[in-house]
């Protein structure tokens, strides 16, 4: 059946099809104080996309099922859409046969660190760790044959802080490309679970806002759709999107040689010294815009067709300053350590809202924890008021890697 699929697609859409297969093996441990789950998964997924009087997409968990899904999708109506020019490189990487080991058992170590950093006010409630390997094969009507392999160790931890009858929960999502880094995760959990229990909120309505790398990354991920939108909102001025010191780049070269459509990965500078200089394109959006694809056809799963989006997005820190120096520049403001609700960003209406917990800062020194505060206003103003970025960039899974350092924003309105 596997070998029949290209011929079948070629009959339906000569020169205008692609075929994708993903096989993955993961081992996951999900541990809490009372329970433990050990999960082993071996997944396979097939997907096909073809242009035959319009674009169609089908997927299935086996080759036979994909053939059946292709037949069913062919019978459905589709608006006319010309096929884009498909990439044709051939790059096959050897497949590693090393077995996937279970993830390390880190619950007790992380639990001790959370208790220590929170002075006993927070406990680790659960830790889910996942180690896995995925092999992706892509071929198309233009002769492309490519295989990529990726490995990862990632997870999510949850801590609960208690003070008297009050409680609060914090979550930390992380991905480790090298050895587990527990200190940082424990500190984020301890602060996120105990700061909201502070007796007071922020007492002033306006000031500087220092964003922790985790909050900065969440903000960057929230505005990232701007980089792949077909119709840019009216408030965006291409020559002047952000402050002069801001440079934003997408570069997934180290992760995979090609994107989810087979276009070679390359570094794309999106915002250079504050100017919006480039956009991210997959094959379809590039064809519509009449430009070459940038290698940003993203395929989060075999169940969804690829679409334009970031792959490894980050703020450049070559001209950054030390985080401690940024703190010293704050006359009156807040250090946003963790978000307490998902960031709200309305790109059309040019509005943002960050609900955070953190520490009040006066005269360059951290003072007392603030239970919660809300910074809101126009995204355009926020981007222009970035006074400096730090050098301490960290990456967070959003779910693609997003990297941000400590960021100092001035003249922010608080509630």
């Amino acid at each position, binding site marked *: 059946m596997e070998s029949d699929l290209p011929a079948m697609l070629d009959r339906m859409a000569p020169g205008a099809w692609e075929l994708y297969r993903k096989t993955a093996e993961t081992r996951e441990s999900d541990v809490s104080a009372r329970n433990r789950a050990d999960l082993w998964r071996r997944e396979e997924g097939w997907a096909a996309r073809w242009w035959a009087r319009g674009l169609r997409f089908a997927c299935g*968990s086996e080759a036979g099922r994909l053939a059946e899904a292709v037949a069913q999708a062919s019978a459905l109506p589709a608006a006319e859409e010309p096929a884009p020019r498909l990439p044709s490189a051939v790059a096959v990487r050897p497949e590693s046969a090393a077995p996937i080991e279970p993830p390390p058992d880190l619950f007790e170590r992380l639990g001790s660190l959370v208790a220590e950093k929170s002075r006993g006010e927070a406990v680790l409630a659960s830790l889910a760790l996942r180690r896995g390997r995925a092999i992706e094969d892509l071929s198309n009507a233009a002769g492309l044959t490519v295989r990529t392999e990726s490995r990862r160790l990632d997870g999510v931890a949850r801590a609960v802080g208690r003070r008297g009858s009050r409680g609060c929960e914090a979550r930390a999502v992380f991905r480790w490309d090298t050895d587990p880094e527990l200190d940082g995760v424990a500190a984020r959990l301890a602060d996120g679970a105990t700061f909201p229990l502070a007796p007071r909120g922020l007492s002033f309505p306006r000031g500087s806002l220092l964003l922790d790398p985790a909050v900065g990354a969440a903000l960057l991920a929230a505005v990232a759709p701007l980089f792949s939108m077909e119709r840019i909102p009216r408030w965006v001025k291409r020559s002047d999107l952000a402050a002069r010191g801001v440079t934003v780049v997408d570069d997934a070269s180290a992760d995979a040689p090609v994107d989810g459509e087979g276009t070679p990965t390359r570094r794309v500078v999106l915002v250079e010294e504050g100017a919006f200089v480039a956009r991210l394109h997959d094959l379809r959006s590039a064809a519509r815009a009449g430009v070459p694809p940038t290698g940003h056809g993203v395929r989060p799963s075999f169940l969804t*067709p690829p679409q334009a989006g970031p792959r490894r997005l980050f703020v450049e820190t070559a001209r950054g300053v030390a985080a401690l120096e940024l703190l010293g520049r704050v006359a009156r403001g807040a250090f946003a350590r963790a978000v307490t609700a998902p960031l709200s960003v309305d790109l059309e209406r040019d509005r943002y809202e960050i609900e955070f917990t953190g520490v009040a800062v006066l005269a360059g020194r951290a003072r007392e924890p603030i239970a919660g505060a809300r910074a809101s206003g126009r995204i355009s103003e926020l981007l222009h008021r970035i006074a400096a970025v730090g050098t301490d960039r960290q990456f967070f899974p959003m779910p693609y890697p997003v990297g941000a350092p400590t960021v100092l924003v001035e003249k922010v309105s608080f509630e």
Partner: protein
Amino acid sequence: MEFDEIQVSRWLDPLVLERGDIADVFVERRRRTVVLWRDGEAAEPRVSLEAGTSARLRRAGRERLAYVSGADDGALREAIRGLQASAGRAPLPLRTPSPRPESVPESTADRWVRRLPAILARHLPRHQLRWTLDEVMRRVVPSGHPAATAVRRLFSLEGTFVAASKRGDESRSFSFHAPDADSTVDELKQALTAAIAPRESPLPHGAGTTDVLFSSGTASVLFHEILSHALEADAEESPLSRLTAARVSASELEVRDDPTRLDLFGAYERDDEASKPRPVKLLDSGRLGGKLTDRAHAGAGASTGHGRRAGPADPPLPRGSNTVVSAGAATTEEMTRRLGNGLWIDEIESGTVELSSGQFRLRYPRARRVRRGRLADEVGPGLLAGEILPALAAVEPVIGREVRACRSLAWCSRGGQVVAVGGAAPDVIVRRLSVRDR
């Protein structure tokens, strides 16, 4: 799905060593058809045919699960082998699977694809909507219990459309989720008619505290967040976990979680552990009722039939299904009068709850202000917030008499696991909720 259940039991039974051990095999086939509709024209049709098999063993708080793509003999044997290896048992010998005929129910997708253009052209000619038909067949073979098969067809239509308002054209959101049944077309037409009704454009309303009348079944979203989640048997941090049978709300209020209401989105005839579900009173005359349990959290009693999985790759968790509020006696006019001044909400986009702090939030796209018992200007979009126990205590002891299904309540995510949920409720007033623009 056509495998030898006696053979499966023979493989699972040796893994069950003690009373309380749970072992089962779970197989799912899912067909999902998606069509994007843009101003009456179909675009980018997508068909997905997924199948997966998992084998699971739970003993003394430790869960083991092995999952393999596919739903044939080979996938079944491999899932069992993975589980046996994980449990330290000698795995089954490898054997080439023998193909078996598959019985897959006919899809109703074609029928919908033919009907929808005319329905949309008549009601919402300018739209960007995503139509999804999920057809799911699940089979569970538990050790020591009878096997069960369940089939569900779920219809969803959501997106935006252009409607006329006094300030000109405006973009409004639309969200309709219902089980695919004979009555779905008529109900969809009613929902589309209501959605396109002329309304003023909403304006910001500021922040503060307000009384709220939850209309058009939206009270089910509130109680899904503050009762259903808070009474899931594994919700150890819930503020309700140690308040068994305590009076927490008006004695006129009765809320139950009812998976047997097959007309609602979250229903099922068997849960994902093959248990027969039963309605659970979450709030009985204002007193806290029972918890929602799966087999692992049932304690001395039997499972209430709320063991639910997002898919075959996930272990079951105790989860809510349909949140149903019993009718009272008041008419809509009486309820509006009773509210006095406040907000009348007939659409809720989404809700969240954090059990450790007891705080919940509900997002709404628009609402009507009520002044002196009369509907006034349109406001929104906004955010309602509150705490579970104070909100329950602030429910007005007069309940509306007409129970309506809430067709925007559909998918609930907890820890990344998404299950179908639904709800139905009469008009309910809750006093003193925090409100602000968003």
